[in-house]
């Protein structure tokens, strides 16, 4: 599996979320994703970027374009140094929110991706990795 392109964006404000969406879409287009696949990964990126900002207190995302012939993919790694998630299973459950959202973001992002993993330590931060392939 080869890395074609890699970039890191900060997530510190609402405007940064817009930039993350744009950069994700750009990568998805560059990798030849269909419109449906583009929309799925962009939406997942939007959810996770907002989680990073709202619950993680800000952080960054690494966007990587991958090549694993004949497959091509986009991988996103969201990292924050926030409070962490005590119960990951609960956080993934639909309808659960510690804020004021719908409680569908994290689970939704998992369903929109081909690969999903989450690592979180209370008091240290959270890292969510997703990937989508065409």
């Amino acid at each position, binding site marked *: 599996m080869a890395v074609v392109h890699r970039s890191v964006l900060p997530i510190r404000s609402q405007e940064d979320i*817009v930039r993350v*969406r744009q950069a994700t879409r750009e990568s998805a287009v560059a990798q030849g994703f269909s419109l449906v696949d583009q929309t*799925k990964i*962009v939406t997942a990126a939007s*959810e996770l970027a907002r989680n990073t900002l709202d619950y993680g207190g800000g952080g960054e995302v690494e966007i990587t374009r991958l090549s694993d012939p004949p497959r091509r993919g986009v991988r996103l790694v969201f990292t924050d140094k926030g409070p962490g998630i005590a119960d990951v299973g609960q956080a993934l459950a639909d309808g659960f929110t510690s804020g004021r*959202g719908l409680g*569908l973001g994290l689970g939704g992002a998992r*369903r929109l991706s081909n690969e999903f993993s989450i690592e979180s330590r209370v008091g240290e931060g959270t890292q969510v990795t997703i990937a989508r392939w065409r």
Partner: protein
Amino acid sequence: MTPATGRTLRKILAQYQKELLGDWLQTQLAASTLRPDLMRENELREQSRELLALLQSAAQNGNLEQTDGPEWAGIREFLARLSRSRAQQGFSSAETATFVFSLKQPLFTRLRTEFAQDAQGLADEMWIANNVLDRLGLYTTEMYLKGREEVIQRQQREMMELSTPVVQLWENILALPLIGTLDSERTQVVMESLLQKIVDTGASIAIIDITGVPTVDTLVAQHLLKTVAAARLMGADCIISGIRPQIAQTIVHLGVNLSDVTTKASLADAFSIALKRTQAKLPPQMGTTS
């Protein structure tokens, strides 16, 4: 810092103003940073003369260590005006600051002649002159950026108003074509303008068209659901149109429940439903086929 420092600088500024201006203009006109395409020589001459005169009077009366004092108000005002006009003329912020910095060379040359033998005195005076010009140069940069920020803020406000027009399609039927990112501040404006228009027109159906919204995530969905609920409380039903195939699939994966809301793929479909529900009377040539 001994009280004597700055004295020679003040003296030079007062005594050699004409010579300084001459030298300065010569350096500026010879410099590679000169932009004759953006600005005429006359204007540059006039600005240089004014800055030098203002610097001289500020230095005579004011403290050379504190360029934010009241004696420096005149020169600060001049520099703010200069930054604005240069920004409009197409100069970069670096070019604008260089205008102030370029005074260093003729000024330092004068100082050197004045302190022919006194290296210590020369170093002291040069340090002061350097600091003053640095602060003034940076001030132009600050003003330049401020001007840019004002433009951005104005554009943001304009965009906010532009992007939320509520239009009346028919008697009792409103449409709200949404375009762009639905961040929370804008959504607030959208909600308010829609609800206000419902009051104003007494409309019974509002069509929210999201064709121009590139990404519908859970936050956008939540905003839409809230708007629909609020409109319903005011007696108006909402139809959400412009649900493209990729958006429909994404909403399903996200698990957002839109089943309580009437949704349509296109604005035309939504309009047709709205006409039927309101039992609108159409002119005969416009009757719908279904």
